[in-house]
């Protein structure tokens, strides 16, 4: 409370009177990890354990299995159904606790789950999904015994072919708590506040309508716990988010839905969205029947009419016009940092340097393969440059132009794991924005039906009153806190192996990366040896 009143005093000096009056006390959320069990009865498992009627309930398996697959609850006569998803399967065979062979009755049987074939895709293979679910459940990176191949996907390019060149032993021995994962979001020294976030990522914009408000609230609450941010997306700003204003980014997108002086003044970061990776260069269209009273209210629109987000800003024809936009926001909110979200055209480097010169604090590149929302398949697959190229290209250009130190470069569009985060940073970003991974943590299976009919059957990307009840806010928040914690641990592990004390030292260190399809012999090639 004391911290709050100090903050309040500072705010009084900068916030307009009417914003101060409507400002709600800001909530703090504990960062502690706690188990957040899967919400379905049968968590999808790599291996399935069957127990036959020959079991005499001797309890040996329960005693042996260190992962608590076999549970005989006190007072129960029969074993509960094996928790197959906890079983390490093949890896267990080599140990001395393999229940299958040690059961005196030979009552146990193990198979590979044939359903795994139907799970996941090239970008999010089954192992990556399973590992992300485990992280969201436990708050820890998955144990190596599970042999999840989750650090890269199977898309055959970009991050999925890039690896770290870890030294055999770290150049310096560091303890976890000596490693700093925070980054700063204002490199301009322009008198605006410095904002530090404790992890080098924040949550992407997902509008109310495209996801439920439980999903939105879970996201911002986890962001609050990690002293980072979440973004409103283009759908306006729910009243229930206001206790988290300090961790919200108000998005000003082309439809200007929910953009008011007050929604701009409440927050510490305002983001201009020019384009998005899911449908670069295309506008949005919310069908009339999805414009329900709740959606219409926060978008400040009339119920039942179709809502268009045109492309692009009809008021922007040039970098100078963009600058006018930024100046407008800077004027309305004197404490805000500004972010400019663009997609990745061929001349993404010029776009980036242009927005830098227009005065943005953060350049947010959203690569062509990104996005969580519904988008035309043709756009997702074909339009704009994958983020891996864009980061390297923009970083280099900003360095050459002498502007890299003055601006924060944030990347998104296909960042799935802590390894992707570290690779993006090593390619030249300061930090990243994540989206899909958060959905996965909440139980998304990537069935892609988010926009069809009633929306997400799993209650994440929907506003259908019957479907949204599947998730409660506490659970959702905890799953995301757990995911963030696990990522942070993975990231610290990477930094530790390189002997780096801060994630800020990793920025642009592409010399620590290798690409499986290249000779990785750049030094010799440059010197002609």
């Amino acid at each position, binding site marked *: 409370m004391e911290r709050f009143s100090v903050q309040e005093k500072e705010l009084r000096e900068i916030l307009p009177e009417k914003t101060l009056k409507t400002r709600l006390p800001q909530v703090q959320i504990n960062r502690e990890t706690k188990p957040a069990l899967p919400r*379905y009865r049968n968590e999808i498992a790599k291996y399935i354990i069957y127990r036959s009627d020959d079991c005499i309930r001797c309890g040996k398996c329960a005693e042996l299995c260190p992962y608590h697959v076999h549970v005989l609850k006190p007072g129960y006569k029969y074993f509960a*159904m094996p928790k197959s998803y906890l079983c390490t399967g093949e890896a267990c065979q080599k140990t001395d606790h393999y229940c299958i062979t040690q059961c005196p009755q030979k009552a146990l049987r193990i198979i590979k789950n*044939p359903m795994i*074939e*139907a799970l996941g*895709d*090239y*970008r999010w293979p089954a192992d990556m999904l399973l590992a992300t679910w485990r992280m969201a459940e436990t708050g820890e990176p998955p144990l190596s015994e599970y042999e999840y191949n989750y650090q890269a996907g199977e*898309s*055959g*390019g*970009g991050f999925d072919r890039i690896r770290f060149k870890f030294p055999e032993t770290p150049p310096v021995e560091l303890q976890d708590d000596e490693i700093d994962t925070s980054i700063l979001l204002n490199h301009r020294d322009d008198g605006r506040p410095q904002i530090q976030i404790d992890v080098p990522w924040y949550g992407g914009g997902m509008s109310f309508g495209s996801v439920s408000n439980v999903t939105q609230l879970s996201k911002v609450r986890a962001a609050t716990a990690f002293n980072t941010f979440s973004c409103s997306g283009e759908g306006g700003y729910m009243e229930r988010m206001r206790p988290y204003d300090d961790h919200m980014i108000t998005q000003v997108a082309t439809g200007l839905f929910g953009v008011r002086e007050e929604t701009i003044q409440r927050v510490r970061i305002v983001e201009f969205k020019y384009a998005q990776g899911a449908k670069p*260069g*295309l506008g949005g269209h919310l069908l009339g029947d999805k414009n329900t009273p709740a959606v219409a209210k926060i978008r400040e629109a009339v119920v039942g009419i179709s809502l*268009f987000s045109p*492309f*692009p800003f009809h008021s922007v024809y040039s970098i100078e016009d963009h600058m006018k936009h930024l100046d407008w926001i800077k004027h309305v909110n004197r404490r805000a940092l500004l972010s400019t979200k*663009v*997609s990745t*055209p*061929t001349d993404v480097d010029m*776009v980036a340097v242009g927005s830098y010169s227009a005065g943005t604090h953060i350049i947010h590149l959203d690569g*062509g393969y*990104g996005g969580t*929302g*519904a*988008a*035309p*398949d*043709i*756009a*997702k*697959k*074909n*339009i*704009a440059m994958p983020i891996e*190229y864009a980061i*390297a290209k923009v970083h*280099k250009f900003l360095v050459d132009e002498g502007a890299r130190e003055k601006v924060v470069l944030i990347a998104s569009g296909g960042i799935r794991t802590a390894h992707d985060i570290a690779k993006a940073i090593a390619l030249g970003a300061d930090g990243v924005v994540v989206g*899909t991974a958060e*959905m996965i943590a909440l139980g*998304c*299976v990537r*069935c*892609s*039906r*988010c*926009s*069809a*009919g009633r929306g*997400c*059957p799993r209650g994440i990307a929907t506003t259908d009153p019957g479907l949204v009840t599947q998730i409660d806010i506490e659970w959702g928040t905890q799953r995301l806190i757990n995911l963030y914690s696990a990522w942070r641990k993975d990231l610290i592990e990477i930094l530790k192996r390189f002997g780096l004390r801060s994630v800020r030292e990793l920025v642009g260190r592409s010399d620590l*990366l290798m690409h499986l*399809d*290249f*000779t*990785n*012999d*750049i030094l010799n*090639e440059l010197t002609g040896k």
Partner: protein
Amino acid sequence: MPEKYHIKTTPVPPRLPRIGKHGIVDWREDCARCHNCVKKACVYDRHRQEAAYIRNLKYSDFLFFECMGCFSCVQNCTKDLLCLTINSEYKKLGNHYWTPEIIHITWQQAETAAVPVSGAGYRGKFSGHGFDSMWTDMSEIVRPTRDGIHGREYISTSVDIGKKPSYLTFDSDQNISGLPAVIDIPMPMIVDMNPAEFTLPQLESYIIEAVKLTDLIAIVDSAKWPAALNDSQMKNIEAYLPHIAFHLNPDAPEIPFDVLRKTRLVEIPDHDDVLSRIAELKEKYPGLIISVRVALDSKGVDRTVELSRLGAEVIHTVADFNGNEIGVDSPGFIKDRIREIHTTLIKEGIRDEVTIIASGGFALPEHMAKGLLCGADVISIYLPLLIALECRLCNTCRPGLICPARLEDISFEYGVGRMRNLIAAWHLQLIELMGAMGMREARRLRGDVGRAMFFEELEEEIFGTLFGSRKRA
């Protein structure tokens, strides 16, 4: 505002049960018969539909595979008895180039005429063979126009077939003179003739109807005249002829003068004396535009360039179904060969004097845009229209073999409707890509590689400076 090109569509549902990707296998033994079985909770009501389907089984060779793959029932079943599987029939659709995904998305467009939309980001490979090794550009602020909501409303997808003069000439009255005839088609696409491998008796009349409805042109083998048109089309033949381009098959009887005269485009096979054949046709049919069909084999690129030099006005360069050069050991792909042809013609200063129609491997609407960016003026397709009819490219459509898609049973309305819908969906998607690029005219896409990004080039330009040379091709 002039009337815009718009294809009127209505949904045309499939005739056969859908071959979906996912199905639920139910190991019924040990079922607890829960009062509130998870099957009732399927958001898409698939289990009930499946039960109804099985009760009225019409096609014993089709199982029910319409599950949307959300895993909800599977994960909630009290006894964990359900299993989500990938349909083995789905995996068998098409071939390595015409993948199950392509077949599936084509069916979807032929049914709905809509742009396929899905959530949760991109799921596919980073890049791939052929057209998958390039991306199209977008612009943050450049629009086709600032009129309308997205600026897309004013995009023109029209292109011309024929010679375009590089300068204007005027007669003594100061009127422009000597303009060569050109055909303006509303979309950079024509329909090729039935390849022999997939010959099915009655498809020409469907295709002709579909291209008339969409104001396009179909190439028809002159051997099929007059059988290609049905009775009602024959009665109104004048309306159809502008949409037919006869491929003058040397082994077939000549097309009557009065018929050929009323068409706009004609195609002749390439041969040594092709120029005198062109001259002969030009003499007889001055307004007719003549295209030479050149196989994209080991000599295809050179021959296309040579014919352009010699003054051919349209060249139809034809690769195999999968877009590969024909009869070559390690064949090049159509997009790369078209780029070669285009750049050579630019260098020689004759690019506008010839229209290049590219064919082979154009399976998705993005391939149309990419083909143009690589240098084609127009593309030609056939297989996508066949797939629209629920064909799955099993390649058994020969006398004596049974077509699993029962193409012999289709009705005229169904066939024409599905093809029209597919063309409409391709048109909408071309507009999506052009809108993102900020391009207002499909004519200007031709050869504009600045609006494209190529995998090999990005790898070299960006990763090459970080990681050395690329090892894999």
